[in-house]
């Protein structure tokens, strides 16, 4: 009996090995003739176009990846692409599985490949070098090889500042919770932008910042939010990938500010607003240019004027006067009069973080490691 089952398992393994190896067709040789370095890219017939994207999370996460997927879906619809012309790969980690996924997309014949996580940067750069005829477009990093690899991101901190206004006007305990993933420049600059927005309308309010050490952990994110509520916060804002902090606020009967996408449907009684991404414009524009053969390796940094970042519609939970205050600030931002990180700004240890008359540029923001004066790190 024992021997027989051993043979059975061996046979199963062999059969499955055969089956799986069948999937690994060798890559088609790159089409000869076009040399993007000198001639730019050839136009692609719309029927022949294949668009690939690798996602760090699930397209249904109601967060970061969801916002990208909504953009892809809208692009697909407005350009009239077939379902099988857009190939998506979800839950791709920032390790060698990223390279594997990129190779699969190359083998599937994609002419343009997107990636939505910081850690894909170096893998995409390498692949771009290996396949100069394919366009690689990477979200949230900074690299660009001047040939077929560019970068795209946006000024989400502007929208965060506006969401801070909504929170600052709403809070009654003057304590606002902020569930952040990590203490890294992206999260810290976001929290600071939010805190400065709060301070612009409510100088007495404090922001209690806590860190979960994960982008995505429903249980921990919710526990973190509950701990902030237990400390007396009556608003919860978040820089996380699930809607759990919103749900924690709703269950406690207080209010919340979402992130990435409009989370009103997930926590209708709590949600005030959310800084949101709308990638539709960038994806549609980029894929259009790929079809026309006019794509160029230029980095893209969208803002509120472009519509890449925005504030989701204010719900009826917001305090009176929020709409006017937000609109005034937004108009100033779009006109270029209001900059989030314009001095003087003190940090939470009393030092001058930004001198009077100075405005931080993107590089400063991308390396920010100080917390604004009204943030209490938990």
């Amino acid at each position, binding site marked *: 009996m024992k021997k027989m089952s051993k043979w059975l398992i061996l046979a199963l393994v062999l059969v499955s090995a055969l089956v799986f190896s069948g999937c690994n067709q060798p890559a088609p040789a790159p089409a000869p003739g076009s040399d993007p370095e000198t001639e730019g890219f050839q136009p692609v017939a719309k029927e022949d176009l294949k668009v690939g994207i690798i996602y760090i999370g699930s397209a249904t996460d109601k967060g970061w990846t969801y916002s990208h997927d909504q953009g892809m879906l809208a692009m697909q619809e407005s350009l009239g692409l077939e379902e099988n012309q857009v190939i998506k790969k979800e839950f791709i980690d920032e390790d060698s599985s990223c390279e594997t996924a990129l190779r699969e997309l190359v083998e599937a014949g994609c002419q343009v490949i997107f990636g939505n996580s910081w850690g894909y940067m170096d893998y995409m750069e390498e692949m771009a070098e290996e396949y100069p005829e394919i366009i690689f477009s990477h979200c949230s990093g900074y690299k660009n090889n001047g040939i077929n690899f560019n970068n795209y991101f946006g000024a989400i901190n502007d929208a965060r500042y506006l969401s801070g206004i909504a929170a600052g006007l709403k809070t009654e305990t003057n304590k606002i919770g902020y569930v952040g993933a990590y203490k890294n420049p992206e999260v810290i600059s976001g929290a600071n932008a939010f805190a400065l927005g709060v301070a612009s309308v409510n100088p007495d309010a404090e922001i209690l910042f806590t860190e979960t050490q994960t982008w995505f952990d429903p249980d921990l994110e919710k526990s973190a939010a509950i*701990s902030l509520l237990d400390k007396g916060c009556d608003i919860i804002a978040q820089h996380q990938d699930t809607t759990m902090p919103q749900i924690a606020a709703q269950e406690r009967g207080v209010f919340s500010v979402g992130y990435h996408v409009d989370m009103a449907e997930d926590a209708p009684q709590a949600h005030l607003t959310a800084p949101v991404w709308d990638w539709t414009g960038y994806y549609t524009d980029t894929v259009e240019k790929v079809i026309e053969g006019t794509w160029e390796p230029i980095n893209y940094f969208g803002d509120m004027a472009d519509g890449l970042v925005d504030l989701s519609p204010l719900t009826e939970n917001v305090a009176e006067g929020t709409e006017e205050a937000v609109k005034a600030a937004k108009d100033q931002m779009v006109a270029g009069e209001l900059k989030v990180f314009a001095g003087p700004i003190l940090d939470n240890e009393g030092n001058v973080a930004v001198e009077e008359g100075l405005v931080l540029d993107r590089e400063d923001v991308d390396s920010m490691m100080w917390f604004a004066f009204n943030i209490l790190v938990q």
Partner: protein
Amino acid sequence: MDLNYLISFIYAVIVAGTPLLLATLGEIITQKAGNLNLGVEGMMYIGVASGFAVAYYTKNPIFFILAAILSGALAAFLYALLTVTLKANQTVTGLALSIFGTGFANFVGETITNTSPTRTAVLDGKLMSYFKPINIPLLSDLPILGRLLFQYNIFVYLAVLIALVTGYFLFNDIRGLNLRAVGENAAAADASGIDVFKYKYLAICFGGALSGLAGAYISVITAGGTWTANSVSGLGWISVALVIFAGWNPYKAIFGSAIFGALRVLRFYLPRQSFNLPNSLYGALPFLVTALVIIFTSIFNSKEIQQPAGCGVNYDREER
């Protein structure tokens, strides 16, 4: 630090520990039957997804709980079929079950959310109201005790009750004794007339059912009735560690789950001014503590706190 804050902390600890307790109790019974089922994470996922799907379409709380329990038990039945009858390697089968469960849950969740235009799936409000913190007139309103004892969701009370019942069963019931005999030495148990295969199958399925129930907890309590991909995110593995920490004892598992729950939320409640430990340390604490328990029990060579001797070894009658 005021009293209310302390009570809030304890409350958070209990809420965080309950899914761990449920899954751990199931795994204790499974291991007591001599089977190491590393599929806890997967069975929890299967419970999450099946429970959610049934609750989403039927809006019935009873069907919801039943679906979560039965799907967990069914997954465990497959594990039992492979390991008890077909004698496949227990570790590998359990790991495969974990991987399968994760994928299954995301597949089910995605199928449901894809049917909604906003890709959000939220459970019916009336169904959710059954799983709110309970409210017993008078008792729940007591000043301190009310919040400490009488304001949890029903799963918390159910989990403690199951722990007490399984503890009694294992240590005070003849069938519990039989089960332990099966786990320690299946051949001897078989020789004494115990139906080894029946005990193994039932224990493993019971373990799966409790994992499924833990999944139900995650669906409606942790995730608050909103579909969330990857919602178990490692709780199953912590439960496996908790089995060792609790020394395969359901009574100790109650306190063990509270300690592990505390380790999970401690980082958010400790005042940063006095305990400025790196946050990444806290995620490792449950496993660190478990490692310490293993070291200590092996140093003192405790006879009581040991994994059942037959755990991990398949019983083959013909090789007796």
